[in-house]
């Protein structure tokens, strides 16, 4: 593995290997000395052209616990705000001898584009509305810890599908692992052309949350991405909650102990009620610690071995 740009690049075997390594890395979080020397002398740059708390700090800690030197570059406060192009910024940073480049960018395809410009290993930490592969890996890893194998298990992904890279990566990852996936959204937030995609990729679509919830083995709520919404996708936040939010009443529709995921940051009271976010079966915080283990595994697999 040279880059991690899309879930599509990973075979089922490779996903399994990443999960095995992540399980080993998970134990490191419980240790007093949270440090492994595997990436000593390697340099990783986090380039974030979009706001982020958990993904950026998670990659930063993951790199540091593997003993890599990690620096952060964000669009605000970098030469990007002086008008430098993405290509020039990336080439400048890589000229400093960088081994790994973790990139988040508002443009879909940015990570792939960057990987063609540089020698460093590139990790896609979210590119526009396209993909967010480490999020999908950590979601599937978290669910696997709760459900055992995902083979034949039914996962419902609910919310703003149109703007969601998390959904695009997750559908691929979960179906690769044998899960049955149903995606639910209001018609205005259902991506155009999803009918042919779902037929080809083997997942189901629905507009009816209340019909899907009782038969789900896991629920994944998506954030309503107001920063990406230029038009009116629903009449009011209240109306969205009534139609598609995971409210206290809907919580009662779930089978007992069905894990509830949310990639964060949560809009409490919009797509997820506090009762659901703080329920005992909510795995939101576990997703964060799994995310660290997954990102350590990804950095290890990309950067530890000999150059491919």
């Amino acid at each position, binding site marked *: 593995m040279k880059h991690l740009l899309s879930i599509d690049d990973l075979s089922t075997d490779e996903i399994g290997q990443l999960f095995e*390594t992540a399980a080993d890395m998970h134990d490191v979080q419980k240790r007093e000395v949270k440090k492994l*020397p*595997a990436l000593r002398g390697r340099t990783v740059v986090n380039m974030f052209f979009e706001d982020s708390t958990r993904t950026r700090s998670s990659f930063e800690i993951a790199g540091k616990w593997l003993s890599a030197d990690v620096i952060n570059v964000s669009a605000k406060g970098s030469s990007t705000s002086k008008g430098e192009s993405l290509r020039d910024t990336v080439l400048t940073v890589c000229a400093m001898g960088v081994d790994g480049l973790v990139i988040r960018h508002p443009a879909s395809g940015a990570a792939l584009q960057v990987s063609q410009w540089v020698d460093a290993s590139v990790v896609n930490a979210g590119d526009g509305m396209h993909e967010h592969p480490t999020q999908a890996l950590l979601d599937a890893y978290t669910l696997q810890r709760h459900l055992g194998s995902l083979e034949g298990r039914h996962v419902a992904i609910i919310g703003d599908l149109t703007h969601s890279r998390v959904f695009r990566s997750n559908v691929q990852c979960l179906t690769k692992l044998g899960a049955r996936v149903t995606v639910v959204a209001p018609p205005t937030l259902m991506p155009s052309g999803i009918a042919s995609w779902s037929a080809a990729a083997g997942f189901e679509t629905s507009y009816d949350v209340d019909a899907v919830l009782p038969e789900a083995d896991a629920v994944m709520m998506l954030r309503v991405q107001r920063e990406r919404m230029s038009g009116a996708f629903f009449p009011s936040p209240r109306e969205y909650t009534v139609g598609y939010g995971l409210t206290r009443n809907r919580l009662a529709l779930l089978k007992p102990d069905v894990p509830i995921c949310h990639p964060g940051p949560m809009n409490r009271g919009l797509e997820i009620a506090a009762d659901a976010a703080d329920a005992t079966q909510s795995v939101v915080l576990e997703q964060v610690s799994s995310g660290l283990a997954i990102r350590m595994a990804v950095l290890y697999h990309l950067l530890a071995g000999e150059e491919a």
Partner: protein
Amino acid sequence: MADPDTDPTRSDRTVLDARDISRALTRISHELLERNKGATDLVLLGLHTRGVPLARRIAEKIAAVEGAPVAVGELDVTMYRDDLRSQPTRRAHKTALPAGGIDRKVVVLVDDVLFSGRTIRAALDALADLGRPSAVRLAVLVDRGHRELPIRADHVGKNLPSALAERVSVRLAEVDGTDEVTIS
């Protein structure tokens, strides 16, 4: 079955069979007990892959002699190796310490073959990140020589002088379905 020493179709030679391995582990168990004056504060850590079953076997033998269980764990040193960069990505294994941890304990590292000593160097670094044992000792089933670092074993099942080009293979029932040590 053909005798491997005379069987012309086999290029390897058996140096320890199942009974030899069992006897060697019994002796190591007794040596450990004698040296440590009992099994208190003793922690056996098997190194992946084949050190893990060896550590478990030694623990069973010690338990049989002492009548009380002895702490066993497993240690993975992949992340501490000095040759990570020159090989394809190695898969890491689980590190599992016994509930009592290793602080102020006598830790015995258990491995199948002692060769260059680099694995043990990595294991010592890994231990330092996990705690502070009062002493660390090394028990190996086979010492084949050719050390590249100033490291030696405290307890050796068999000293096996070998040429650098020769290959020493340890097979254990738990991993390989059979117990034997061969050289080829």
